[in-house]
């Protein structure tokens, strides 16, 4: 097992990884930008190294600085969290070259799966159902025009290195293609340093249901059931739950087997997620595979009673999996609390938290790096907290969530708590009757 793990991330996920490391008796190293000097992950880790100024490209995305931090602290593994360098093949490669274990996918796997356009080809070959679109990265705007005509509007432009809703646009009409093309290139270049774009048919009225998988170094994989992430705004997940209210035992088995097929096709090692779009006929299409721990891994942990980060570290250290699959025993919901004003079109609201009170009690879990006096910097993601409830039934989990949201006090900044309070009362949401379009007609 590893002796010391460097966490190449910030915020709640850095804390999340530190917690598991502590339980496993592994020392931890935090890295931070100057904007995060007072962040909790810096205080909770055994050691901390400053890796640069606030801009992500000069700190959390700066590979030489992170490797240097691992070398001076003598860390034998790096956990990348989610976002930043978690699905960066170069980073995975540089770790390997420096004799540091990257707790995530190998460079080859990231190239095969993290790169969304080649992932689709790999999946097609493995017999996993896919959505029609461009064959790999689009060479030019002209090519984009041509393929869009073939597969018919609406289409979706996606940055090949993208994720978390950044670097993608839906285009409904030919005349809007050029503007969206430029916007995606710009966003992708700024956020991921890679402006490759691909295109696919935009499936209308879909549900976003993903399957959690785990694979070991010996080519064996298993699934840990689904998460329904259909409540999204601009492709940014807001609420996740498991089991999906749309799921049947039969569909779960079919999707689970497809996900295992996907994992075994690339000899996937570690924990990952296979995202599918499920239409109203319960046909499903492979969307992408995330070769990292996800923001919403928490709800899976709650319903199968399993620490996924611990599993991830064990798999990286070479432990084998049992090979059996895991099914939900409870119902769990996660609300992402963002520093955004839901009454002003979810505009970002960084700043100082002047007063803070966290919810608690039976069935309530809170993963956050927020505290009273913390100043949320404008340089990073707006998510400041994940509120999770778990109960025997969906209805109970919702009731518990309402109670927990009412207890949660964050003053000084605007947050999405009022949005979640309203959502939990929404008759369509309560009925489990929603698609990824839900937020387009939801009024605050």
């Amino acid at each position: 097992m590893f002796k010391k793990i460097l966490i190449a991330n910030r915020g709640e996920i850095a804390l999340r990884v530190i917690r598991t490391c502590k339980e496993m008796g592994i020392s931890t190293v935090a890295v931070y930008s100057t904007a995060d000097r007072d962040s909790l992950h810096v205080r909770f880790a055994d050691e901390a190294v400053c890796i640069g100024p606030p801009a992500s490209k000069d700190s959390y995305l700066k590979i030489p600085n992170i490797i240097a931090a691992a070398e001076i602290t003598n860390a034998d593994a790096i956990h990348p969290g989610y976002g930043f360098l978690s699905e960066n093949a170069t980073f995975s490669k540089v770790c390997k070259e420096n004799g540091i274990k990257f707790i995530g996918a190998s460079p080859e796997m990231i190239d095969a799966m993290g790169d969304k356009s080649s992932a689709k080809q790999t999946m097609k070959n493995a017999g996993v159902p896919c959505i029609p679109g461009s064959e790999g990265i689009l060479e030019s705007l002209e090519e984009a025009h041509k393929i869009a005509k073939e597969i018919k509007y609406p289409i979706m432009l996606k940055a090949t290195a993208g994720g978390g809703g950044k670097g993608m646009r839906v285009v409904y009409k030919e005349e809007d293609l050029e503007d969206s093309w430029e916007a995606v290139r710009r966003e992708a270049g700024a956020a991921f340093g890679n402006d490759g774009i691909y295109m696919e048919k935009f499936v209308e009225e879909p549900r976003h249901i993903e399957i959690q998988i785990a694979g070991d170094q010996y080519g064996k994989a298993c699934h840990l059931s689904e998460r329904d992430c259909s409540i999204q705004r601009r492709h940014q997940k807001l609420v996740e739950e498991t089991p999906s209210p749309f799921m049947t035992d039969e569909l779960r088995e079919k999707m689970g087997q497809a996900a295992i097929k996907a994992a075994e096709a690339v000899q996937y090692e570690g924990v990952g997620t296979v995202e599918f779009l499920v239409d109203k006929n319960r046909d499903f299409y492979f969307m992408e595979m995330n070769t990292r721990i996800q923001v919403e891994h928490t709800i899976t942990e709650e319903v199968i009673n399993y620490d996924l980060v611990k599993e991830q570290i064990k798999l990286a250290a070479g432990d084998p999996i049992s090979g059996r699959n895991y099914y939900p025993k409870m119902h769990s919901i996660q609300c992402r609390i963002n520093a955004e004003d839901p009454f002003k079109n979810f505009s970002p609201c960084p700043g100082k938290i002047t007063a803070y009170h966290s919810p608690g009690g039976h069935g309530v879990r809170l993963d956050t790096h927020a505290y009273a006096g913390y100043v949320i910097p404008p340089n990073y993601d707006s998510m400041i907290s994940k509120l999770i409830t778990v109960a025997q039934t969906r209805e109970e989990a919702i009731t518990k969530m309402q109670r927990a949201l009412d207890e949660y006090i964050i003053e000084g900044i605007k947050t999405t708590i009022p949005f979640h309070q309203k959502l939990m009362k929404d008759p369509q949401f309560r009925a489990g009757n929603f698609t990824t379009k839900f937020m387009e007609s939801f009024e605050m």
Partner: protein
Amino acid sequence: MTKARIGNKEFDFSWDNTFHNATLNGEKIEIQPSEKKGHFCLKYQNKKYRGEWIAFHSDTKIAIIKINHTEFSINITQPIDALLEKLGMGGGSTKKVKNLKAPMPGLVRQILVNVDEEVTKDAPLLILEAMKMENVIKAQGDGKIKSIQVNQGQAVEKSALLVEFY
């Protein structure tokens, strides 16, 4: 006589032309504007209260006031421009383009207008990146641009002056 509503409760409200004396459901209130703009003192049923105007939304006619640290949103069903003027909250319904300030800290990603350009309400002026999101900052009304105070790629603090109008 003005009718005001808080939640489901409706109140009759009136005031004399000095605005220092008012009645609430027939009972007397003394209003004393304080030196601080938007602040005032109330005396009602022999008790004193401290009040503050927080906001007035002219389109919805909802006023938000703070009485002894508690915020109330009041639905006002009669014109109250004169009262607002008196209490330092005037100009509720006239829309004049003011200078554009940064609504949040962030990075100026792109400037979409030029000096001396005439813009109409809701015209995109610039793109401000904050929390990894591109936020299109729009004109709050019609106007002509006098100067642009920031450069592309510049980091700005909240409330920093971005665009000046004539």
